């Protein structure tokens, strides 16, 4: 843009380099990719999840995730059809990637105190919510190995928007 006047190296030399450690310090709520990259050490079970849920989530999302002041998190049926009201789009019938649950709960919940759950608590909540939705049988604890392998029923009906596909032919949904 500034052609002739740019700095040595063809760059503007603006912005300060960070060490990998500084990046980690900045990245307080890391993103979890669908293949599990970003998942922390630790783990949690359905039972542990139930205790955390009842203490920290039930007030807003209702007993057993059936909905309260805010969204219900648990429900049937699958697949969603055009007759299912969108308030009944929940983890079991609509969420397509198990990693999204960990990513979202850790970054954004509980609403009024985000960032306060331990990694173990988040794993436990994910286990509990997947179990309540009938997605897992709860026999294994949730951790960086087990979580990405969970098959979400709603993945089967997810497709890329055709206009987007035309614009980005290389694009594939994970």
């Amino acid at each position, binding site marked *: 843009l500034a052609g002739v006047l740019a700095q040595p190296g063809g760059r503007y030399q603006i912005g300060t380099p960070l060490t990998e450690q500084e990046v980690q310090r900045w990245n307080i709520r890391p993103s979890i990719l669908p293949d599990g990259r970003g998942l922390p050490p630790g783990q949690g079970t359905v039972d542990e999840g139930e205790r955390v849920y009842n203490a920290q989530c039930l007030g807003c999302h209702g007993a057993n995730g059936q909905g309260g002041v805010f969204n219900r998190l648990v429900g049937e049926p699958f697949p969603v059809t055009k007759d299912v009201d969108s308030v009944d789009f929940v983890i079991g019938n609509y969420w397509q990637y198990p990693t999204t649950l960990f990513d979202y709960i850790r970054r954004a919940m509980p609403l009024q105190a985000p960032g306060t759950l331990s990694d173990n608590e988040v794993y436990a909540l994910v286990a509990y919510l997947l179990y309540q939705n009938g997605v897992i049988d709860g026999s294994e604890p949730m951790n960086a190995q087990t979580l990405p392998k969970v098959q979400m029923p*709603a993945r089967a009906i997810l497709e890329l928007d055709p206009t987007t596909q035309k614009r980005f032919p290389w694009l594939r949904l994970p």
Partner: protein
Amino acid sequence: AGAFVKLSGGLAQGGEKFSEKAFEPMRFLGAELREYGERSEFEKGVVRYISPNLRTRHSGANFTPLDKLDGVITPSSLHFERHHGGVPTIDPAEHRLVIHGMVERPLIFTLADLKRLPSVTRTLFIECAGNGQNGYRNPPDMTLTATRSRGLVSNSSWTGVPLAILLKEAGVKEGARWLIPEGADAAAYTRSLPLEKAMEDVLVAYAQNGEALRPEQGYPLRLVVPGWEGSIMVKWLRRIQVTDMPVMAKDETSEYTDTMADGKVHAFTWIMEPQSIITYPSGLQQIQRGFHEIRGLAWSGHGRIVRVEISLDGGATWRRASLEPSPDPLSVVRFKLGWVWDGKETIIMSRAWDEKGNTQPTQEEFFARWARNNRYHYNAIQAWRIGADGKVVNGDKTLSASLAPRRLGAVGMGGCGGES
């Protein structure tokens, strides 16, 4: 809602052509010079619409009052809001933007750093993917206004640094395809954005309509992704991770995905389809016989609006409206058509065409493709019915029960249409 707004009323009450009150302002010195101006006390009723049905104002949306505005710039105080954890208060001296992940050198930028770099100013619409959600009601909502029909759109002059420049400074590594921008709000809102789009025209904006971004619009930094759904334009931008894979965040999987009539769910419906809305005369306004300029707004994420047609007979025939010159292909454009109302019941509608040949569907056409429980990207033609008494109401047809829902989407408790 419910009260009709007499917009074309004539003279003072009691048949007088003017009143002594008109001379009052001339008798006394007015207000002094001020450092920062405010609007007239008589305009205090022009506000964003906040639905009384909201369960919280910490996560939700409000609507730009399209039916009370003129021209094409949205005053920043009236730009629609949408957020998931409230509007954070950010000290710009403490705020930083970090670019990391698949880059040669992770970089941290202060605001001052960003403002030294080459800048771009563009007039661009931002539209919530949930705009139009009130169109899902069947039978149609007879209290609908232009604001509640399409007010999840706003149009501003944005200034910022091209994201491409920052990525080049950091040096994107081979194999990188995606960016994951993150906000500094309570929800640490994230999305996925193809690197390719970022290299084309995405801005890291720090100014809106000449001044610093407004807090609701991401102060001090936000993404502006021309033509794409508003929810991807991450606000309070603090971090961009360069990756080879999208993150599939909550707000691009469980929200902002479209349910289709064939039972599928569409992800990444980024480009906003053509829209238009007649703002005058529109729902709950009240007009009189005689000449009126019909006015409205049109826009498309695919490119420049090249034609807007208006029907004065419920869609049987269409005539071409005139378009104000547009400052940018991806700006909202104002359309106009002179018209004499003869006092008979009339159904008026508009439909926009963009330079790629896209236009708006009828309601039936829309629901033939999208499921009736979809929440996003509704862009069907909106009709207004002018009664013989000059009152204007929603003119959309009632659809057959099998096609459209009785109560869905925004009207229920989910979605971002701003009414739940």
